[in-house]
Structures are given as structure tokens and as C-alpha cells.
């Protein structure tokens, strides 16, 4: 039942928080207790028993969730970063803190559902449902132009989802699968004709590409981050609304390997463009939150390159990067919130030289920036490295172009540090207070943990990556559309269709 509780506990906590909104202390305690409990559950996910219950038997839909595979790493990242996000939400949101916290918790539940779903309809429901808390956080707590940003996000998401839903429903009908369960689908969908697979994959890709996001479908992201609450708490979870890569990894490619192989050259090229485009966007940004959004967009491009390179190392790396980037990106949004708290501005021109008056903030800011730009030993490096190296094995040129983003990351990373923290110290600010220390503690732990302890987590992701490469090898073997050498060996079919959970 662990995976189910990982979804239920934050949901129930959200409801309790809303009920208790008039007694501040109790509400805070309950919210944090719920988040900590969810973190404990997330730690227990690896090896947990998958859960399945009948839901709509007439339509072949069952409520199946499994906390193994990539989900165990991704849900852990969400649950870890939930704690600093909640701490900030409960203390720095002036009006309606309870509602804010409840929405964060609801978003956490939704994200856990997306990552753990093993039934395509369940996946879709969580995919859409997670939109709601995100939209409400932006719409109710956002900045001046929140209405435009909300509309934009909604339009992008709904349009994409429409095509995705059509593909999902056609998938089962056309393939004649017994149910929407991932195993049932994976056994038969690769046998669809290449043309059919391609059309269905394009439909899925439209929904997922918006949420990767990939150039040129990315612009909702920058406005979303800019207009979200200045504390940065909403952006912490927002940095995982970029769930498109996971969709491709867990559903799009393994279900429709021949179609994916057809479209992948286009997508990997767009992803490489995204990596550079985002990096240049960050260099050109003068608004701190837009800056972070563009930098993060660049990371998503690299993740996309790792996914569409369709090599085992790249798939492992991309999912690991997706989890790890949440810590550094989320951490930087929180640091940005702390800066805003001091100066009431996100304009980088309003900062400079504050390392003198706030050395601890500068030191932790620098650590997080270095993690953000992929300095080895910190969180983003293992995933970024594996994404690019894996993709390079199958698609050297797009991977090499995306690797150039590493230079650009050096530029925007040190630019940011210099503009905010270095130079003449005309601007004097308060250094970190006790609460902010506690907020940044999980960030520091996460940055180091993901940076160093990567092998066991990659191993868990790999159980799922191998499903994907196995499906691609089936296509290659049948000669439908050879995606090139997949390289690394995978165990035989029967053994790999589980993610390593207890039976």
C-alpha cells in the first residue's frame, strides 16, 4: 500500500490544512507533519509492492500504481523539496497561507500519481489533475500579470492534452489490448503498423512536448515562473510540472517504439535547440525568475536529448537529471524568494555586492548556482553527463550541439553570481535568518546527495529504462524501423516487465 499512501497522505493533509486554516499553529504542524510523513513514504518506495484495484472494469481501467523504477527517485525528489517549499509557504505567504499549502500538497499528490501510474488512463487523469493546483497557485497567488500567464499555460496544456487523449483512446482500440495496463499495452502496441504508430506517437508527443517543454512550445514556462508567487515556493513544485520527458520515457517510447524511432530525429534536434535557446535566454534575462526559467528550459533540452537519443545511458541520465534538477532549480527559486524578501525586486540591476553583508546567503547561493550549471560532485552533473553521453552514442551531432550549452551555462551561472553577490557593496541586506537556514538545509543535502550517491538511484531507474530499450530492440529485430545500435544489453523479455518490486 506504500505507493497509494504516498498519494493519499498529502491529499488528506491538504484537506486537513484547509479545515484547520483558522488555527495557524495547528495548521502549520499538520502541514509539515504530512509532508514529513510523505517523505518517509517516498524513502520506502523502492522495493514496495505495486498496488492495483479495479476501477472501471468495463473500459479496462484499473487503479494501478507502482512506486519502483524511475518513480522512486522522482517522488523522493518531490517529497524532499516539498519541505522547504512548505516552510516558505507557511511563513512568507501573507494572505491565504493555508490555501497555498493545501495546493502545494495537492500538487505533490498529483505528481506522485503521474510518476507511479501503471495504467494509461490513471496516468492521464493525474496528468490533467495536477494542472489544477498549478493553475490555482498561479491564478490566486501570482503577480500582476497572472491572468495572462494562467491563460497561456492553460491554452498550451489543454491543446496538447487534447491530442494526447485522442491518441490514448485510439491506442487501446486500434491495438486490441486487453486493458489500459502498461503491460497489456506494451505486449501488443509495438505490433501496430509503423504508420499507425507514428500518428499515435505524434498525438502523444504534442501533449508531452508542451510539458517537456520543447522549443517552440515552451513560452508558457517563462511566464508561469515569472508570475508565480515571489516566495518561489510554487516554483519549487513548478519545476516538476515539466513532466513531459517522463511521459515520453515511461509511455510514449515504450508503447510506440517504431513511431518514436521515426519522429525521434526531429525531436532530438528540437531538444538540442531548446538546450542552447534556453541558455541564451538566461544570458539575456534581467529578471531573476525569467532567468531561472530559461536556465531550467536549457536543462529540459538536455533531458530531451537524453530521452530521444534512445540509449540506455541517456534514458537513465535523463530521468536522474529530471529528479536532481528539481533540487537545484527549486533551491534557486527559494534563494530568489529570499532575495525578493530583502529588496522587493527581481530586477538583477537592483542587486550587487551583497556577499559582504550576507556571506552565508552568498555561499549557499553559490553552491546552488554551481549545482544548477552542472558542476561535478553536485546534483545536476551525473544526470546531465549520462544524458549527453548516452545520446552521443546514437546521435553524436545533436548531443554535441547540446553539450555546447555547458559553456553557456558557465556564462549565465557566473553572470548571475556576479550580478547579485559581487561588486561594490552598496546594497546592504540581512544575512540568512534561522528559518531560512532550515529552508536551505534540505536543498544542500539534496544537492550533495544527488551529486554523489547516484549509482543506486540510477540502478532503480534502469529497471524501467530497460523496458524502453527492450521495446526498441523488438522493433529493431523485426526490422520495421531500425533506430540504430542500442548498444547495451538488456535481459530477456519476461524478467524485465516488472520494475523490481516485491511480488
Amino acid at each position, binding site marked *: 500500500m506504500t505507493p497509494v499512501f504516498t498519494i493519499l497522505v498529502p491529499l488528506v493533509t491538504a484537506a486537513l490544512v484547509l479545515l484547520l486554516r483558522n488555527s495557524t499553529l495547528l495548521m502549520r504542524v499538520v502541514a509539515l507533519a504530512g509532508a514529513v510523513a510523505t517523505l518517509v513514504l517516498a524513502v520506502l518506495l523502492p522495493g514496495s509492492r505495486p498496488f492495483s484495484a479495479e476501477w472501471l472494469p468495463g473500459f479496462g481501467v484499473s487503479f494501478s500504481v507502482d512506486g519502483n523504477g524511475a518513480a522512486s527517485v522522482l517522488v523522493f525528489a518531490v517529497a524532499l523539496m516539498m519541505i522547504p517549499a512548505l516552510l516558505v509557504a507557511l511563513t512568507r505567504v501573507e494572505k491565504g497561507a493555508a490555501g497555498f499549502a493545501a495546493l502545494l500538497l495537492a500538487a505533490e499528490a498529483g505528481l506522485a500519481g503521474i510518476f507511479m501510474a501503471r495504467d494509461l488512463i490513471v496516468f492521464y487523469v493525474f496528468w490533467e489533475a495536477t*494542472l*489544477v493546483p498549478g*493553475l*490555482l497557485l498561479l*491564478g490566486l497567488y501570482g503577480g500582476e500579470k*497572472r491572468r495572462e500567464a*494562467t*491563460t*497561456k499555460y*492553460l*491554452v498550451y496544456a*489543454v*491543446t496538447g492534452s487534447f491530442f494526447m*487523449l485522442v491518441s490514448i*483512446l485510439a491506442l487501446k*482500440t486500434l491495438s486490441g489490448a486487453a486493458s489500459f495496463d502498461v503491460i497489456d499495452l506494451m505486449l501488443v502496441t509495438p505490433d501496430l503498423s509503423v504508420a499507425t504508430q507514428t500518428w499515435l506517437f505524434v498525438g502523444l508527443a504534442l501533449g508531452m512536448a508542451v510539458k517537456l517543454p520543447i522549443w*517552440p512550445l515552451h*513560452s508558457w514556462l*517563462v511566464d508561469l515562473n515569472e508570475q508565480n508567487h515571489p516566495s518561489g515556493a510554487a516554483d519549487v513544485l513548478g519545476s516538476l510540472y515539466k513532466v513531459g520527458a517522463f511521459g515520453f520515457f515511461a509511455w510514449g517510447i515504450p508503447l510506440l517504439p517504431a513511431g518514436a524511432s521515426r519522429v525521434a530525429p526531429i525531436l532530438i534536434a528540437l531538444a538540442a535547440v531548446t538546450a542552447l535557446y534556453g541558455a*541564451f*535566454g538566461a*544570458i*539575456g*534575462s534581467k529578471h531573476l525568475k525569467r532567468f531561472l526559467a530559461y536556465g531550467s528550459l536549457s536543462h529540459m533540452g538536455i533531458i530531451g536529448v537524453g530521452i530521444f537519443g534512445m*540509449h*540506455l*545511458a541517456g534514458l537513465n541520465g535523463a530521468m536522474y537529471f529530471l529528479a536532481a534538477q528539481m533540487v537545484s532549480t527549486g533551491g534557486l527559486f527559494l534563494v530568489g524568494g529570499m532575495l525578493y524578501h530583502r529588496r522587493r525586486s527581481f530586477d538583477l540591476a537592483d542587486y550587487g555586492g551583497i556577499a*559582504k553583508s550576507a556571506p552565508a546567503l552568498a555561499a549557499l547561493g553559490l553552491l546552488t548556482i*554551481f549545482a544548477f550549471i552542472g558542476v*561535478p*560532485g553536485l546534483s545536476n*552533473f551525473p544526470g546531465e*553527463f*549520462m544524458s*549527453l*553521453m548516452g545520446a*552521443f*552514442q546514437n546521435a*553524436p551531432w545533436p548531443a554535441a550541439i547540446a*553539450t555546447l550549452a*555547458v*559553456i553557456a*551555462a*558557465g*556564462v549565465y551561472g*557566473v*553572470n548571475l553570481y*556576479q550580478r547579485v553577490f*559581487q*561588486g*561594490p*557593496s552598496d546594497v546592504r541586506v540581512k544575512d540568512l535568518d534561522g528559518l531560512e537556514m532550515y529552508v536551505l538545509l534540505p536543498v544542500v543535502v539534496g544537492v550533495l546527495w544527488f551529486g554523489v550517491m547516484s*549509482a*543506486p538511484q*540510477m*540502478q532503480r531507474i*534502469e529497471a524501467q*529504462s530497460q523496458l524502453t530499450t527492450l521495446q526498441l530492440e523488438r522493433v529493431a529485430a523485426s526490422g520495421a524501423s531500425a533506430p540504430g545500435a542500442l548498444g*547495451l*544489453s538488456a535481459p530477456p523479455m519476461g524478467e524485465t516487465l516488472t520494475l523490481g518490486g516485491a511480488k
Partner: protein
Amino acid sequence: MTDLAHLAALAPLLALAGAFVNGLFGRNLKEPAPGIIASVAVAAGFVLSLIAFFGVAGSGEAVRVGFGDFLRAGDFTLSLGFHLDQLSVLMMLIITGVGLLIHVYSIGYMHGDPGYSRYFAQLNLFVASMLVLVMADSFVLMFIGWEGVGVCSFLLIGFWYHDLANASAGRKAFIVNRVGDVGFLLAMFLTFKVFGSLDIQTVSAMAPTMLYGSAVLTGIGLLYLLAAAGKSAQLPLHVWLPDAMAGPTPVSALIHAATMVTAGVYLIARTSAVYAVAPAALATVAWVGVLTALVAAIAAVGQTDIKRILAYSTISQVGFMIAAVGAGAYWAGIFHVLTHAFFKALLFLGAGSVIHALGGEQDVRKMGGLGRRMRVTGTTALIATLAIAGVPFLSGFFSKDSIVVATFTSGALAGAGGEVLYALLMVTAGITAFYMFRWYYLVFAGEERLERGVSEKVHESPSVMTVPLTILAIGSVLVGYLGLPSFLADNRIAAWLGHATAAGEFSHPSVATEWLLLIASVVVAFIGLGLGYWVYAVGKGALAKRLGNAPIAGASRGAFGFDILYRALFVDTGAGTAEAVTLLDREVVDRGLVGLSGVVPLIGGLLRRWQSGQVRAYAFAMLVGAACLVAAAAIVGVLK
């Protein structure tokens, strides 16, 4: 001893621990406690390096210390570990030995600085990263150290960050280094594609079985060269090092002279097995090294800042080392790393002593005659000057001569212009002697040209600074005897490093020829020094002033205009691209794709009509829409 050698794995951890203690609690400690803590950490590392050295020397075998897995995908597992062999323990001794002296010197040099503990934390972090770089058994771990030293270099160059010029110098170093790092990353990707492994020993063992001279191997070699050029400030990525002088002078001595900038030499020596089967890449290495040595030596002549002269000198000397490894004389390259670590660290620390005494003055035109007032600094600086100039019986003479001879006798360069490279290096050696004489004479000899008010303050530095100078001076004399020309005596360092690197091919000229080459080196050194004496001591620099308007003099002062060129080519276009991207995003991607496509405005319009001023309506509408779609699909499913 081999078991004890495992202890050396603690060396980087101790330095890291020192960095943590100073970083977290340093502000509560009184001077000089942070300096002592940091020095003790490095001293312990030096002792551990000695133990490892004797362990490897005793058994002749490399020692491996494993930690655990880091990355994995299918059959590929990358575990982290240290590989201690003849090459890595020698580098460890240089890093911790010279590093210790510079840490001790810094206790005096950084006296009274408000960032005292931060300085030592970052210096210790640097030593830890540099040790990881040379001890790593895989390219990935080496890259962790590689970027780690880059980060520390960035922090220490911009140490006095209140002045934006210093911060920008650090930024420039970091960004240029990242260009090299991309070379390193791509080299690793290609290595993995070809060898299926990123373990250095595995790759080295497989390399001889690969197709000799194939394009991918050449590609790997060129990409590692790009990485080396970034870290070791070689053409065309050398532009960051002169600006890096913005950091405190002991940092220039440790990072930007003795250790970090030689990492590229180490990388190429470490991957010598790959270069052995990629001759075109190896020849390119030699050419890059020689051209860098020449260009930087010419640039050094025209500088007026006491540290910038030494910076260009460092670029030039590292060029010699790169030329050596490019000739296949890996031992000669590392030998020059060793001797250069002593005399160049000494030159920088001597410059630091002068700057310290003059209260921050760095212009050599406003110095002169200081040798009479600062006996220890002046004498040790003279020894270092003669050593780098190539005066016989000092360390620089032996190591430089071995490099120059190697380009002449190298089999690898036989068809790739070895003779031209030899001639260019000889010219460069002459220029080196000239500009170093100029440096010494303008600072320490001749008449005093100090600014008013400065003269009274001039004093010799405290013994915490002069003792390291003296030890380095002794080293600058003696370490050269480890590598005497092999036709005269046992060459210990060549034999030692021969265990850890590939063997280059060399012709063996007659003893008479060897003597001739040796004498030619001596003659060139004295010509350079003599010219310097004639121009600056006899002619009082009048000739230099008269030639000041010649094109070559302008090129030398402006260091051949690389900075201006790069600003136009990369900095301005990069900034332009960044602005274009943000503009494009606002004006085209947003409006274009949302506004012009047919479907989206339709949906947007529908939503706008629904809009009741409440954002919740959007969410509600979406849910209703999604529900309708699900329902429609369900009906279709039932009908079917």
C-alpha cells in the same frame, strides 16, 4: 609499504576537511589559526604523498583504492577510485609540497585581510580538487577534480570581489575553461563510444589494439587537447591567464603557475597510450605547445606589470611542457612541470614579497634597485631568474634542454616539422632569457624609480614569507639533477615515469651531436641574457624606447590582440544572440505560434468568453472539457 600507500587516499579528504572547518567556523577563529589549520591539512597530505611515493617505489606496482559506483547503464558501471602510480605520486608530491610552502607564505601575505579564513578554505578546497584530478583512475573522476580546480580558480581570482574588475577576471577564467571542459566532455563521450569504458587504465590497455591513426582516435586526441588548452592556457584558449593575476599573489603562484595550469600536461601524459596510436593528434599537440611558447614569450617582453610578465612567462613555459608531451617525451614534460613548479612559484612569491613591501605597486617602471633593500627576496628571485633562463647547472636548464632536444630527436615529429619546432623553441628560449633578465633588472637592480612616499616603507618580508622563498630557491637549484641528460648520467626521472606513460620513439644521435645540442642551449641562454644586459643595464632601456613604435612592439604589448578579437567574435555576438533570443521569445514565439495558428486562438477565444473574471473558471472549464472528452470516448467504446 603498498598497504600504507592506501592511506594516501586520505590526502584529498584532509584538505577537504580543512576547507570545511575554515569555511564553516573560520570567521570565529583568530588569525593565524585558519592559516595553521589549512597548512597542517596540506602538510599531512604531503606526508601521505611521501608514504605513497615510497610504497610505489618499493614495489614498482601501482596501487588502486576503490570507493564505490557512481554511474551505471547496463553493462557499463563507473566506479570511483584512485590510481596511484609513478606519475600520480610525483604530481601529488608537487601539489602538496609546493602547496605547503605557499600555504605557509600566505599566513604572512594575507595578514589582516578581512577574508582571511575564506581564503584558506578556498585554498584547501583547491588542493583537494587538484589531488583528486591527479589521483583519479577514471576520466569522470578526473573531470570532477578538473572542474573543481576551475571553480576554486574562479573563486580565488575574484577573491577581492568588491572590485568588479577582479570578479570579471574570475568570470573570464571560468568561462574560457568551460570551453575546454566541453572538449573534455566530448572526448569522454567519444572515448566511451570507441572503448566502451571510461577507466583510464582500461582505455590505455586497449589503445594499442586499436586501428593506428584512425580518425576517431585522432578526434579523441584533439578533443583532449582542447581540454588541455583550456586548463593549461594554451592557444587559442590562453587569454584568461593574464587576467587571472587579479587574484592574491600566492594564488597565482600555486594555481596559475605551479599546479593547475599544468593539468593539461598531466592529462596528455596520462592518456599517452591513446596519443601513441593517434600520431596526427600528437603532432598537433607539439605545434600548439611550441606556437604558444613563442607567442607568449614575445608578449612577455612588452608587459609592464610585475605579475603579467610572469603570467605570459607561465603560458610560454607550459607551452614548452605541452611541446614535450607532443614530442612523445612525456617524462620531459612532467620533469619541466616539476622544475617549473619550484622556480615559477618562487618568482611569483618573490613578486608578492615586492608588492607587499611597496604597498600594492605592480608597475615595474616604478620599481628598481630593490635587491639592495630586500636581500632574501632579491637573491632568491635572481636564482629563479637564472633557472628559468636556462643557465647551466640550475634546474630549468636540464628540463628545458631535455624538451628542446626531444623535439629534435622525436620519431613522432620526424615527418611533422620536428626541425622547425626545434628552431622555434630555441628562439623562444633566447627570448625567455631576455624577458626574464628585463624583469629582474627592472625590479631588483639599477636605480630606484619608486613613487614618492613608497621608498621609506620598503622592507624585507617577515620570515614566514622568506623561509618558503629560501626552500623554493634550494629546490630551483637541485631538482634538475633528477633528470641529467642520459648520455652523461642516469636519468632518474625518465626511468621513473617510464613505468606510467607510453614510450615515445626517439632517434639516438652520436654523443658529439648531443654535446653540440647541449652547448647550443647554453649559448642561446647567454645570448638572451646578454641582450637583456645590453639593452637594460648598459643602454638604460633607450633602445627599447626607440623600438617602442615598431609593429612587433605594439603586438607584444597588446599580446597580439587576442582579447580584442575574441570580444568581437564571441563576447559581442554572444550577447547579441542572447538579446535576440529574449526578443524572439517575446515577439515571435509567443505571438506567432499562439496568435497565428488556427486552432489555438479559437480555444483561447472560447475560454475568454467563458471568463467570468474568476481564474477558477479556467480550471473548471478545463476539467469539464476533459470530462466531456472522456465521456465521448467512453460512449465510442461502448458503441464499439
